[in-house]
């Protein structure tokens, strides 16, 4: 922030405007899917890495547009905590997570069907913001999210969830949503983000269904509806 010396007004830069990722997003972010090999290490294909603790899971789904058709050129990014509820972080000397745990990945669809899927581990609960509603700001001065993956009197836990960011042709600015798990009903019931959604019937749009098991891993189904009946909840984060 710069202060204008003439009138003491704070001056901030303005964020660069978003533009659609377009139909050829794969060239930049998943060139192998575009049909060619260019980088030795294409990023985003392994979210959890080989050393991650916790339950290995598979997540599958489809992004559906307002006409009910699958979106076949979508790209989804995943951001998640490890099984302890800890995120990889930039500050303070880096991660306290298992070696090789990135917590981030990229998922693209089958160009013919629009189906996508990825393997990862089920994240743990992570702390929410401090409970401002129940206290005064002066009492709970620290209103910032806690790094630690444990709940305390000021921080309710958030139920295990994946953070998703969806871009595609026709999507002008990336859509943020979350995926929760249907076998975490108790944690979901007190999750402060789910409870923020005024329309209780819409909360179900964020909850993936355990649809079976494959290769010893639970498979969760999570369809994302961009528009229309049961439109998925998207967040302004």
């Amino acid at each position, binding site marked *: 922030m710069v202060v204008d010396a003439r009138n003491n007004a704070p001056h901030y830069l303005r964020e660069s405007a978003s533009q659609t990722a377009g139909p050829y997003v794969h060239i930049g972010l998943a060139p192998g899917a575009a049909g060619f090999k260019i980088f030795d290490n294409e990023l985003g294909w392994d979210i959890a890495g080989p050393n991650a603790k916790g339950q290995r899971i598979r997540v599958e789904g489809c992004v559906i547009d307002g006409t009910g058709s699958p979106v076949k050129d979508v790209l989804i990014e995943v951001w998640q905590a490890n099984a302890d509820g800890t995120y990889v972080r930039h500050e303070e000397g880096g*991660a306290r997570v298992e070696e090789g745990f990135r917590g981030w990945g990229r998922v693209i669809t089958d160009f013919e069907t629009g189906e996508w899927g990825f393997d990862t581990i089920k994240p743990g609960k992570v702390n929410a913001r401090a409970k401002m509603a129940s206290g005064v700001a002066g009492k709970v*001065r620290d209103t*910032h999210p806690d790094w630690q993956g444990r709940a305390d009197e000021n921080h309710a836990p958030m139920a295990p969830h994946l953070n998703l960011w969806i871009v595609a042709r026709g999507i002008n600015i990336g859509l943020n949503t979350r995926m929760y798990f249907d076998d975490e009903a108790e944690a979901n019931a007190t999750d402060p983000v789910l409870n923020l959604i005024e329309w209780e019937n819409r909360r179900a749009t964020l909850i993936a269904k355990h649809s079976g098991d494959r290769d010893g891993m639970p498979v969760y189904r999570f369809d994302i509806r961009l528009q229309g009946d049961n439109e998925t909840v998207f967040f302004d984060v």
Partner: protein
Amino acid sequence: MMHPAEYYQRDRRIHPPALTPDYKTSVARSPRLALISLQGSVSETTGPVFGHGDLNPIDNDLIKNYAKDGDPVGERIIVHGRVLDENARPVPNTLVEIWQANAGGRYRHKKDTYLAPIDPNFGGCGRTITDADGHYFFRTVKPGAYPWRNWVNNWRPAHIHVSVFGHAFCQRLITQLYFEGDPLIPHCPIVQTIPDPDAIDRLTAKLDLNATVPLDSIAYRFDIVLRGRRSTMFENRMEGN
């Protein structure tokens, strides 16, 4: 205990709305219900970390990173600038990825069928990590304009797609870089999804004569601004800006 600071709320008025009927594909792909505003939790104020070990040094040189038997055809350009936040502070060590059509306006993508030819020496993507001052640079060829199906006769201005991470998942941004003076900019329904003319101007890279390489490459300057972190009163000490 250190905590990640929160970010300024995103000013949605400078971004395109979800529904922009002149860009037809947005009509069926735009949420109709309001976004739920979410104050930042640790899920939003953290983000992935990338290092130089993830990349090769040649990854930011699109003239060489797919060359088979010579350089790609086209106007040789340098695109450089800084990644900053709204507080005008540099964003160091963040991943910047780009992708683009070749000089003829053709993408190396199995779904692109435009009649301009593929360039055997041009892949069309690159990536780099910003330095300690937030600087990045790429060398490439200037992409060509190309037609696309929207109205019967739509042409995209020359552009490079840009993806930036920042340090928090809530800073994640994909945008497009345009070139100063391109007469197609005011006619493009995708550019014009942005309601604010100043915001379009900020996506327009400017000729940077001093950064050109004489007898070799023209340079364009393009700064990218990500959301800024809030100052926090913490233990009676100001943090942040």
